[in-house]
């Protein structure tokens, strides 16, 4: 008996399930906050949420509205500042990082800076913020995206945040820390990973009711497809109950 749920709720549940217990995760505003909170209440009670302006190890009882607000260090382990957090990540302590953007390419490079020309932009976007830092120094990054051809493109207008750059070896060649890079892309259609050899994006599993063809149609570059594409399960009753009753009772993300 599956319940009805919104696309956001599905995204939150999928992102939540990626997180592993006893790891650290850099949490940005919005869906990652709900996903981390859900993960703490499900499979990852020892997930350590890290917020860029200083909150570490909060118990996410109330949903933060911003990456600096009081809830990001609610009953936290530490409340320091942005330098401490970013340096902790640069030292290799942060396993997961969540990212978003207006455009992504097959190597997981992200654009959140500008659509069109940098000097004469069609749309000026909010900019890197901590995105570039998370993409540079976290071990594994997870992009959360709306899946369509305008967003999944052959060539992004501006490379704000590093994915695998131009492919195998490019991150190390640029000086980025060893063995880091994109890990998953979670969208309203599917979950993708990256091919070990070519470092190109690869479809791993599709969301309920979505076909491989639909994913390919909505992707603006040639997408690799795993030999066996799995099926993501619906949000469970338990997940939805926690989300709706405990994490987001006001329905901000319904």
């Amino acid at each position, binding site marked *: 008996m599956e319940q009805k749920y919104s696309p956001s709720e599905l995204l939150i549940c999928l992102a939540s399930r990626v997180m592993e217990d006893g790891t650290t995760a850099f949490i940005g*505003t*919005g869906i990652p906050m709900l996903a981390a909170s859900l993960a703490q209440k499900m499979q990852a009670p020892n997930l350590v949420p890290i*917020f*860029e*302006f*200083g*909150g570490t190890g909060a118990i996410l009882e109330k949903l933060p*509205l*911003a*990456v*600096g*607000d*009081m809830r*990001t*260090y609610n009953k936290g382990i530490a*409340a*320091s*500042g*942005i*330098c401490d957090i*970013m340096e902790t990540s*640069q030292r290799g302590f942060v396993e997961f990082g969540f990212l978003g953007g207006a455009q992504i390419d097959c190597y997981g*490079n992200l654009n959140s*800076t500008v659509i069109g020309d*940098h000097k*004469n*932009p069609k*749309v*000026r*976007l*909010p*900019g*890197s*913020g*901590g*995105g*570039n*830092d998370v993409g*540079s*120094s976290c071990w594994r990054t997870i992009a959360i995206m709306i899946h369509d051809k305008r967003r999944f493109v052959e060539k992004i207008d*501006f*490379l*704000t*945040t*590093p994915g695998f*750059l131009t492919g195998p070896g*490019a*991150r190390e*060649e*640029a*000086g*980025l*820390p060893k063995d880091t890079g994109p890990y998953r892309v979670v969208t309203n259609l599917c979950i993708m990973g990256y091919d070990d050899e070519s470092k190109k994006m690869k479809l791993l599993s599709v969301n309920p009711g979505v076909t491989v063809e639909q994913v390919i149609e909505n992707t603006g570059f040639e997408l690799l497809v795993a030999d066996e594409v799995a099926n993501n399960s619906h949000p469970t009753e338990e997940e939805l109950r926690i989300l709706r009753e405990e994490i987001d009772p006001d329905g*901000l993300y319904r």
Partner: protein
Amino acid sequence: MNQNLKNIPIIEEGEGPLIQPIDLDGFREHNRKKSKALIDKTMSEKEAIDKFVKSGDYIGFELYGTVRCPMTLARELVRSGKRNFRIVGQGVHELDLLFAADMVREIDFTYIGLEVYGISANMRRAVESGSITKLVEWSNAALTWRFKAASMGIPFIPTRSMLGTDTLKKSAAKVVECPFTGQKVALLPALIVDVAFIHVNRADKHGNCQIDGISGFAFEMARACKTLIISAEKIVDTKEIREHPDKTIIPYYLVDAVVHAPYGSWPGEMSGMYERDEPHYKSFVEKQKKKDTMDAYMKEWVYDLPDHKALVDKVGKNKLEELTIKEA
């Protein structure tokens, strides 16, 4: 001396200009002249802005979003009519007001937006119209590390952020080969702001400050500016500071003005003291989407109010008490 001296290759240089030049010896000279005496620096927002800010200055606000914002200083700055500022674009709500008043010309940009509420339309209008003449890109950490370099009194600091990206290409960083490890690192130039605005939980009249909760980049920015204007929820006796010297994050000698500003972060939040005024912020989010409604917001909430007291009266005692966090 070692005979095998070699050069450090510069591998890449960002195209962006240094909006604020680095002059460490000038900074030292300025800091030497700042008073070290324990004098009374309390004054109004208007006095502080009149005395210490001039058009064209490079200015910075701490913290982020709507958290611990020196909003009373930002509103007074708008009312002052001073303009042509160069700014750190680090995502603070204050900038929405400055953009709406067309006061910004050059930006060291990392993130300007409304977080969960999306893109800042004020920023978009300013940038897309061409009223911003210089725009240099950085990551968030990179900008803060630039403050950190200045706070340490050194010309640059290395980082492993920004490498390989257009963010670096449009910055003023330089990529070099590390002379110790041979690995590539980006060098971030120190950033010394002319005037910094920081809101704190408590300060004494001399400017000794305490902050509760996360400290954002207050430590770094307070030490990376020539002039520092503090607004504080509470003015406390210096005795209280001296009882817990390990809580002082900003010592008085860094500070030029202390403004008493209860509910000074409104409509934003203040750690342990009050929550964000969500209904007001949501209405701001709607109004900022179009220029005419934003102009009306500015008239109602900035220009038509002579000072912070008038704003507090307008928001209303009941509303502010409702936002206040009750002691557990």
